[in-house]
């Protein structure tokens, strides 16, 4: 008993010592990196920021409403005495030009508005995609122009004869359908006591007693918004709730405002990883990191200590942004895994890059890739559940005031957490003298990194399992890319892509092990490795059950990705073994190929992919 207690005490003591070391290194790192920014740099930076703020501010104050990027992109031929001239002149996207029929034909004009008689207006549109886009912009500008003029009219009921209440109603819900009864109350109210409702936008929020709490709060928000002005604010009401106002104020649901705000969270990450990648690579230049390496500290302690200040900086910046744009704790919680993803990828990049130049390139690439991965799916928040593969979708939902379930949070952030952890572990494998201070080719370092994690059969299975988040992420990215393609094209391409991703994940470390002669070349050993890898994959893949909790496989294309996991309820128990057999067979094929160099391994990978894709095709056909 006391033995156990002693051991526990020892463990706590060593953990505490370790944390203290981490903290010491973190403090040292923070002091050093702040110290390198001397006064002159800080002064220059401050001057530049002040100058920028002055330029941007003065331009904004001068009136040309902010961004000028889409100014005058369409040219409209219109005379100065044409009644439509002010429409074109006042629109920032349209530029007035000399009306000229020939210019329209040559493409120098996109739209031509003629004014041959007193009340006669004729218009021509260039027969190009640009021409019709310009025409659409013109029609929108006419609407806006009319709205502006109507706002000055004294007779309100003539200027705004129509008032719209737009509400989003859930139809899938049960028989009680709160939406339906909402309609009833509202139209009753409108019919009997509409006189009480002025343009101030009194709404249904008080009568929606039978709605859910979430819906009610949404309506409260939108009511507040429409009281402030007839134009809906960008933050709150892109989706859900209701809108009120004249027809022109209705905004189709497009979470653009929240999306832009969510994007702001990603911007500071680029600075943080720049600094972080710099300090990590710095350790490798002129053997500077040797002192830390020979110190009586664990590698993980050093890495944790050096990473902590940057993670904290990212969290603090995120919290500040959240406070400014109106996000809550949930936004911060959703951005933390993205920050970890940025940092872990940069860590690995700094471990394998050979120069600052290379690191800059790789850092930019990481930034672009992670940003794309986080941002693009978030565009489709509320359009399709696939959007949840990005934690940024959680931020968008948070900014819109929507409820996020624990399952949704885990689904979108889980792969990021797991993936970051794996990358940190892989990178720390080559945080050692022979890799840090030598100029090895990158593939060799990647193989070193993988090989460093292997020890026996169990480790192969474990690492296959650890790759599953990456497989998951890569597959979801593939789905996101192919989502817009026609289904006849996307399904077959997806089947092959998914097979290739999975086969690569099951075999790349086996190949690394053989390349560094870690494993015996005897066939039984090879087959054993293949089986272990296949089983590891099979077990880990069961985590895609999380995906089913969220309801992703409701999409046809989601089915193609996850049906092979064999979680479909209709599947008989006997058939449950099929995926297990498949994974072990293909993993064995690649393991055998991995013994004999790159070329044989590549061929084996192709064969395994074909087998796997054929199997996937069979499963899809079975359920189609």
């Amino acid at each position, binding site marked *: 008993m006391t033995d156990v207690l002693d051991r526990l005490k020892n463990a706590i003591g060593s953990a505490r010592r370790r944390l203290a070391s981490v903290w010491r290194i973190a403090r040292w790192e923070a002091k050093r990196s702040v110290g390198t920014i001397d006064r002159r740099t800080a002064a220059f930076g401050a001057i530049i920021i002040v100058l920028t703020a002055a330029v941007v501010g003065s331009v904004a104050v001068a009136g040309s409403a902010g961004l*000028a*990027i889409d100014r005058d992109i369409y040219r409209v031929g219109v005379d100065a005495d044409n009644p439509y001239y002010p429409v074109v002149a006042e629109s920032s996207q349209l530029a007035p030009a000399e009306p000229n029929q020939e210019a329209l034909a040559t493409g120098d004009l996109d739209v031509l508005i003629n004014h041959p008689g007193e009340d006669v207006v004729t218009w021509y549109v260039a027969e190009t995609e640009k021409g019709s886009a310009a025409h659409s912009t013109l029609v929108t500008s006419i609407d806006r122009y009319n709205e502006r003029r109507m706002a000055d009219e004294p007779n309100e009921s003539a200027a705004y*004869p129509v008032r719209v209440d737009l509400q989003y109603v859930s139809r899938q819900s049960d028989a009680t359908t709160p939406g339906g009864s909402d*309609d009833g109350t509202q139209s009753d109210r409108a019919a009997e006591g509409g006189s009480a409702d002025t343009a101030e936008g009194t709404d249904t929020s008080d009568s929606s007693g039978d709605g859910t709490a979430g819906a009610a709060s949404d309506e409260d928000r939108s009511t507040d918004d429409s009281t402030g002005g007839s134009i809906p604010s960008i933050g709150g009401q892109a989706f859900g709730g209701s809108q009120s106002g004249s027809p022109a104020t209705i905004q189709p649901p497009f979470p653009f405002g929240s999306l832009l705000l969510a994007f702001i969270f990603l911007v500071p990450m680029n600075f943080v990883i720049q600094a972080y990648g710099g300090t990590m690579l710095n350790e490798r230049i002129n053997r500077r990191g040797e002192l830390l390496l020979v110190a009586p500290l664990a590698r993980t302690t050093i890495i944790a200590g050096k990473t902590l200040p940057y993670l904290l900086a990212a969290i603090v910046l995120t919290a500040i942004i959240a406070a400014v744009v109106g996000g809550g704790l949930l936004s911060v919680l959703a951005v933390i895994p993205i920050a970890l993803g940025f940092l872990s990828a940069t860590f690995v990049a700094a471990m394998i890059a050979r120069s600052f130049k290379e690191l800059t390139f790789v850092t930019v690439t990481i930034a672009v890739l992670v940003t794309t991965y986080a941002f693009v799916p978030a565009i489709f928040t509320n359009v399709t559940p696939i959007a949840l593969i990005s934690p940024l979708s959680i931020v968008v939902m948070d900014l819109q005031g929507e409820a996020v379930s624990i399952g949704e949070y885990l689904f979108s952030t889980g792969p990021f957490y797991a993936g970051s952890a794996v990358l940190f572990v892989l990178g720390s494998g080559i945080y050692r003298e022979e890799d840090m201070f030598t100029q090895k080719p990158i593939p060799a370092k990647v193989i070193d990194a993988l090989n460093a994690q292997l020890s026996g059969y169990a480790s192969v299975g474990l690492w296959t399992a650890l790759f599953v988040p990456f497989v998951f992420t890569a597959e979801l990215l593939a789905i996101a890319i192919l989502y817009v393609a026609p289904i006849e094209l996307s399904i077959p391409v997806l089947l092959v892509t998914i097979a290739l991703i999975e086969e690569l994940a099951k075999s790349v470390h086996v190949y690394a092990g053989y390349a560094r002669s870690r494993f015996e070349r005897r066939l039984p050993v090879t087959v054993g490795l293949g089986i272990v890898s296949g089983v590891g994959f099979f077990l880990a893949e069961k985590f895609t059950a999380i995906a089913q909790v969220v309801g992703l496989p409701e999409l046809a294309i989601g089915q193609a990705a996850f049906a092979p996991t064999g979680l479909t309820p209709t599947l008989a128990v006997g058939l449950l073994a099929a995926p297990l057999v498949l994974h072990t067979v293909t993993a064995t094929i690649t393991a055998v190929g991995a013994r004999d160099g790159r070329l044989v391994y590549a061929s084996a990978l192709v064969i395994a992919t074909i087998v796997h894709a054929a199997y996937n095709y069979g499963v899809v056909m079975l359920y189609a």
Partner: protein
Amino acid sequence: MRSDSNRRPPRLTIARRELRMLTAEKTIVLALAIQLFVAAFSSFLVVGLVSLYDPTGADGYQIEAAVTGDAADELLAAASEHERIEPTAYNDLAAAQSAFRTGQADVLFVATWETDPDATADRLRVTTSVPESNVETTIIVAETRTLLQTVERDLRDDRAASLESQPLQPLGEREGNPYYDFTYTVLVPLLVLLPAFISGSITVDSLTEEVERGTLDVLRVAPITLTQIVDGKAAAAIVIAPLQAITWLVLITLNGTPVANLGWLFVLASALAIGIVSIAVGTALLAADRRSAQLLYAVSAIALFAGTAVLADGPTNAIARLAIDSADTTIYASVAVVVAAAIVAYGGVRVIVSRVDPNEL
């Protein structure tokens, strides 16, 4: 052989060495490939975005509308002008609601007249219900807006006598792609500016790395000046930026989005690269070490980007208008100004370089 290489201008030698080093590190090629993929991917997604969010993208798509209430006739009259909305009148509110709930109708309009004691005429109040969270919701709402705007216009026409100024008639219906300009105003400027920023970053790295590793000393014993070294390094960085930009633009063109004025864009991209690389050289030589140089450079680059984005006829706007083929003389003049500014900037930086004492770096 030796005499041959001696005769080659030293600047060119350094520039070639820089370029060779960039291509020798295959990761850079890989990084470029990934960036290309992202560029292709994002323009592809723009297309996807349009097909999802653009009502006109769904050809032949019909929206079934349930219309009820004492003012239903106004909506039915307006709907007859719209091809995409197929209205059905219901006398009974409950029947209309159940049609909406069961999915027979995509949208429910409850139109009632509403008396406003302050106003001279009644107001039309339309309570519109649309299904929540659905890909089609966007299309339904966009079409609903168009329909209700027609209703509004008809009523305004009826009440024209009470209006001081008459609203302008719309010139036809929106048929074009509302996101057509997105590629030109956001994506193309990004693809032109990003390589220039990367080039500047490479220049900072290349110069500060030589200083930090102490390899500049080796270069200095060679019979060349610091200005020549900087010239060579800057030239290499400047050359690759417009090449990347034009590659991306050609790729976008192949992807189905024509980009016009490639020649002018090449000139503009080169000038921007020269200007940004000048800033990079300046920060690399003035700042204390690599990290502060990179920080200063990043802040300056972002400042420059923000500054030009708000400037009318500025570089960002010029890129968009050249690419979309709406450039006029002011844009050509703007390109000329950027070229002149870039040359002045580089000249200024060279003056700074010539005054820097290499031994103090």
